[in-house]
């Protein structure tokens, strides 16, 4: 029995090892693409976004007004009932001021940080938030609990995507 042997392997490499070619590396990259069917509920959601409206669905059982809308309530596990238009205003539940891109690379000097937030949309059930971005606001001025309103792209630029809302700005 070798009680004392607990750690073995895990040979750390330095940047220098890589740069100097001391280590053999092989590189490969993939070029894959996807075309998603958006489904029944999200198709309606995206069509309404194109019109400048936010639509939710209501559960017949628990009466939750669900956003993003869905064809079934995951709590009651029944088909959802009516479609319900909700407001394009809401409340900031929480936010961040992000200085890195999606791939973890740093934003450049002078580039504005991303301002992601969870926004609870007025008219949906309490706590029903969506992730989006904030805009037309100084990062220092953002507060949890702040009321915000959607800023839409011009109608002819909308494509039926969550990005048809450019961002939410303080109300």
């Amino acid at each position, binding site marked *: *029995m*070798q*009680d004392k*042997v*607990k*750690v*073995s*392997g*895990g*040979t*750390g*490499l330095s940047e220098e090892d*890589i740069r100097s070619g001391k*280590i053999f590396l092989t*590189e*490969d990259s*993939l070029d894959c693409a*996807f075309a*998603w069917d*958006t489904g029944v509920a*999200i198709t309606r*959601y*995206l069509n309404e976004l194109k019109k400048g409206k936010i639509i939710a669905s209501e559960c017949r059982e628990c009466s939750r007004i*669900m*956003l*993003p809308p869905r064809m079934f309530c*995951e709590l009651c596990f029944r088909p959802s009932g009516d479609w319900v238009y909700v407001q394009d205003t809401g409340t900031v*539940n*929480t*936010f*961040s*001021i*992000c*200085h*890195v*891109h*999606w*791939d*973890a*690379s740093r934003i450049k000097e002078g580039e504005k940080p*991303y301002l*992601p*937030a*969870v926004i609870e949309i007025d008219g949906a059930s309490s*706590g*029903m*938030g*969506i*992730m*989006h*971005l904030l805009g037309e606001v100084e*990062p220092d001025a953002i507060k*949890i609990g702040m009321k915000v309103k959607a800023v839409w792209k011009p109608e002819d630029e909308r494509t039926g*995507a*969550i*990005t048809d809302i450019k961002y939410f700005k303080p109300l």
Partner: protein
Amino acid sequence: MKMRKVAIVGAGLTKFVRRALETPKELSYEATKTALDSCGLRLEDIDCVAHGTAPDAFDGIHQNGEYMVDGCGGWNKPTMRVYVGGATGVHAIVHGWHHVASGMFDTCLVVCEEKMSSAMPHAQGFFLTIFDAITERALHPNLLWIFALEMNRYMNRYGYTKEDMALAAVNNKMNGLKHPASQFRDEVTVEDVLNSEIMAYPVSRLDVSPVSDGAAAVVLAAEPVARRITDKPVWIEGVGWTLDTAYWATRDLYYPRYLDTAARMAYDMAGIREPAKQINIAEPYDPFDYKALHHMEGLQLSPRGKTVELLRDGHFARDGNLPMCPSGGLLGVGNPIAAAGTMKVCELFWQLRGEADERQVPGNPRLGVAQAWGDLMQVSSVVVVGI
């Protein structure tokens, strides 16, 4: 249903490093062989393998679990991969426990591995694909966003400050200096954490664990077999796990509901009624400093909103009433995702056997809990172990 008692009888790790020379299979082999050697077993003594590794995207090999089978000793054995994001490392133990507790197998190897450095330029980029393809991904989110959102909400709810969160980072990072597998060698102060580069407010560089390569393995055995292998078995007393909804923005982020359910499930099974009094060592999952505290609350080991107070009072120090991450955790040892959770269970195994060397928690600890967490802030697995 009558379930058999299951013990952990051996454990092994590789060093956690920024970039490893070894391939994922080689890392798995090192940890697995070390775990087998630690309890004097050979591969032919093992009945089945529970294997964990995180997204295929990190290794660029689809169905990576099947590819990895040789490294984890699973060749021609009943082997299955378990994958629940960051919770994989503890969930793989739950998975192995099922195999043995059910009576199906007498022994099970649990092997978890992660090599994050192969994904270029940064593993973070591959996490874009965990978000909803249509309603979220178009915003180009990254994981830092959602953790920063959660951290901000948690701090705001209880009036915690950045300094409060930094205290947790320092607690874990300083513990990690004593860990032989740790990828860190430098002491860290609260000022260092506060002054580190801002990634996504309120998350700064030292609030977050690094990307790492590494592997961890444990050997499980049914009661009579375990007693033949070792005179110091560490028993799996309770297991629990939960998946919350992927509509992560529709719940309030200040409290980990997924963990509340999983922890209560594990404690019920272990017959624990007052976890904060009965548990001697906690290894909450800590990819971020706030997350260690958030999870102490979800694990029912600290009253909600009072955790910083207890941390300041030394309650969670190595020599405190309830040591938090004596291993150093992900912040102090490193974060090879799936392997990190298993590393926590390895730590409890050594601590309860009194074999944790410099890291040994005083007072003959008898009961420990390890936990891991992942995906869209929605999944958690919990394992309670005892002697």
